[in-house]
């Protein structure tokens, strides 16, 4: 068996201030390949802000995010990271296939082809359907399919289970376990209690 590359995502002494309110301060964590970081906390406790800091959309008010020991802006981080946020990030006037082709063009091709990814998220035969004809849960699965077709090792997911049914949730949990088993790591927020087998889950409670 070949050795899997190991990656390390670190946050050191992070703090976030919003409208003169301290959301969190002195927050540190370290995440390596194969692990999941679950952010918990009540609404407005800064979960999404922390995710956006990890995406590089927002500068932390103090502290640093490091990728394999380097600041994320100086490293290969963006080529290794994929984000699915509150917004699905798919165009409703394009078909499922066209949306995924654009995502693929923006990244590097990954483990699965577009067809395989659609099979995985149970959207086979939807490739020529306009996204505006999909249900909310199907759109969510489509935006998660983006994670499968591009090369990445960190998934940053903001409430990935929103508008998914039970099978959808189970499906995403399976995909997450597979991703961790193949050396990836995941940072996510969720109100839903996640059940992952054989995966080390770290929890940070922001409240």
């Amino acid at each position, binding site marked *: 068996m070949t050795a899997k590359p190991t990656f390390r995502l670190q946050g050191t002494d992070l703090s976030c201030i919003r409208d003169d309110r301290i959301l969190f301060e002195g927050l540190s964590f370290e995440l390596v390949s194969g692990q999941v970081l679950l952010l918990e906390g009540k609404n407005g406790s800064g979960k999404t802000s922390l995710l956006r800091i990890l995406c590089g959309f927002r500068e932390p008010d103090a502290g640093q995010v490091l990728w394999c020991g380097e600041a994320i802006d100086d490293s290969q981080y963006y*080529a290794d990271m994929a984000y699915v946020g509150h917004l699905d990030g798919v165009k409703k006037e394009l078909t499922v296939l066209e949306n995924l082709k654009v995502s693929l063009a923006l990244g590097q091709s990954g483990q699965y082809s577009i067809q395989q990814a659609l099979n995985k998220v149970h959207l086979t035969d939807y490739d020529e359907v306009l996204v505006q004809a999909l249900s909310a849960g199907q759109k969510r699965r489509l935006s998660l399919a983006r994670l499968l077709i591009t090369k990445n090792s960190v998934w940053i997911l903001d409430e990935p289970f929103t508008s998914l049914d039970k099978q959808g949730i189970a499906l995403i949990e399976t995909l997450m376990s597979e991703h961790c088993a193949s050396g990836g790591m995941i940072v996510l927020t969720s109100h839903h209690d996640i059940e992952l087998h054989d995966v080390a889950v770290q929890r940070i409670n922001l409240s």
Partner: protein
Amino acid sequence: MSLSHAFFAIIRRDLVLALRRRSEIANPLLFFILVITLFPLGIGAQPHLLQAIAPGIIWVSALLAAMLSLDSLFRSDFDDGSLEQILLSSHPASILVLGKIIAHWLVTGLPLLIVAPLLAIFLGMPTHSLGILLLTLLLGTPVLSLIGAIGVALTVGLRRGGMILSLLVLPLYVPVLIFASNAVEIAGTGLPVDAQINILISILLMALVLAPWPTAAALKMSIN
């Protein structure tokens, strides 16, 4: 995938989107045609006056039509989260943004070029200045899209950015307006216009090189 692949994928995506949302192409074009056709009605039977102000009318209308179309440049991508995905790409954001601006120009600027000669004849512009009119539009309208993109990128996060956008962008459009309409006017008299055209070329090249960076930076600020 390679950068050029991503660049063309963005252009293709925006062109397909524009084809599926035709009002986006039609609105600025319709505005351009309407404003120009209203002038003869407002001025009355004074063909010489109309002929004299024709370059100005066409260029002011083109400028306002370009401004009208600006908001659509990043709005829908901002609202549905596609912009986040574009900025997260490992490719340089400024190049991808340039792709979006080019697609936007192809959709909103190029149609103006196609109808402009017809409207120019309608206003009684001498036929020998039509070539120069087209040339100024070809050089000038991309500048309007490029400079406008910086303004939209700064205001896309605001709920009512329209007013600020015009205040930000209009002063920067003025040099293009002055040199372009002057070139068309001088061309009508038969004098050479190389100087104005060269200045427009240099403005275009400068905007092409300098505009995508601040646009990408402003977009990053806006999605925060």
